[in-house]
């Protein structure tokens, strides 16, 4: 019998709560988290225990880590594993939650968001510049820039999506419902713009077309992945 197994994460920015609930259900069946993996968690077979899980995001200096983990330990939360700035803890039910007020939960999301903000903004800026380059250049240079632009977009769009979701989580905790709704509408907005570009431009070699296809792809692909993943979880997820 296997002693380790892997479960997929819905992405902490997108489904932190669901992930933590899932880890608890696995623990009840004797499968406990050992580590983060690329797309999820590595579980190990042990004794069935009702553990609750929580995750915190924080960049720690070397001389801060001991104190930080001691806070959790003395409150009944044992440290499971960390990956970069993401720290996973578990406790027995009934232990006080790691966050006890709304203001600090807002800061939790803000920490995570601001750690990615500058990277994302620079990535978007460079991507936009390269796209601009494809519009004004010709020949081989255009082809090269075009490829670069496509690759950059493939990275930039999911990154932007993640950061927006993190800020969306933050705004939801703060009670800013309007902003939250706006974020949900964004994919449709993008899709709309892309379709308009497709309808307006009929020169098929135009770089705008590539851009439009990219946007459509970027919106539809995650949606398809999401549908497949939820189907997968519905079919196989509960049968541990």
């Amino acid at each position, binding site marked *: 019998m296997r002693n380790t197994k892997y479960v997929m994460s819905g992405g902490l920015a997108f489904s932190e709560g669901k992930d933590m609930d899932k880890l608890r259900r696995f623990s009840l069946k004797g499968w406990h988290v050992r580590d983060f993996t690329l797309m999820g968690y590595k579980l190990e077979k042990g004794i069935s225990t009702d553990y609750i899980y929580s995750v915190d995001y924080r960049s720690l200096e070397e001389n801060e880590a001991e*104190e930080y983990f*001691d806070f959790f330990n*003395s*409150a009944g939360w044992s440290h499971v594993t960390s990956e970069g700035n993401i720290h996973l803890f578990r406790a027995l039910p009934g232990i*006080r939650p*790691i966050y006890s007020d709304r*203001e600090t939960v807002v*800061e*939790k999301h803000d920490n995570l968001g601001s750690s990615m903000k500058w990277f994302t903004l620079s990535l978007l800026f460079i991507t936009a510049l390269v796209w601009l380059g494809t519009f004004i250049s010709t020949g081989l240079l255009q082809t090269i820039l075009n490829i670069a632009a496509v690759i950059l977009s493939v990275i930039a769009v999911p990154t932007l999506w993640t950061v927006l979701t993190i800020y969306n989580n933050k705004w939801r905790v703060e009670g800013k419902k309007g902003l939250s709704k706006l974020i949900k509408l964004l994919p449709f907005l993008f899709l709309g713009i892309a379709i308009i570009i497709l309808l307006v431009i009929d020169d098929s070699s135009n770089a705008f077309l590539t851009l439009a296809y990219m946007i459509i792809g970027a919106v539809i692909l995650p949606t398809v992945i999401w549908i497949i993943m939820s189907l997968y979880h519905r079919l196989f997820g509960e049968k541990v």
Partner: protein
Amino acid sequence: MKTTEQLTDSMFYIMAALTKPRHGYAIMNLIEERTKGAITIGPASMYTIIKKLLKQDWIYLYDGSDPRRKTYLLTQKGKEVLEADVKLRKLMIDLAEMGLKEAEE
């Protein structure tokens, strides 16, 4: 309105516990004991607020010799902020108590 922002409840509790040098665990326990368990502070909230208070210069690192159990203490500025906030909160309580009394009459 006053120029200083009102402290959040958690900041208020933690500052109230730092009138004497205490480490994180002691702060959590003290708050829980003195409020008979009505108020608890989670470790992540606690850590976030300690960092924030340090940045504001309202508390300072009193003893860092044990890296696991660093102790903190209110600064003079922190004490003033806490005192001002206590005054404001007293007014809030008075306001509500007067209101409730009125309702009984």
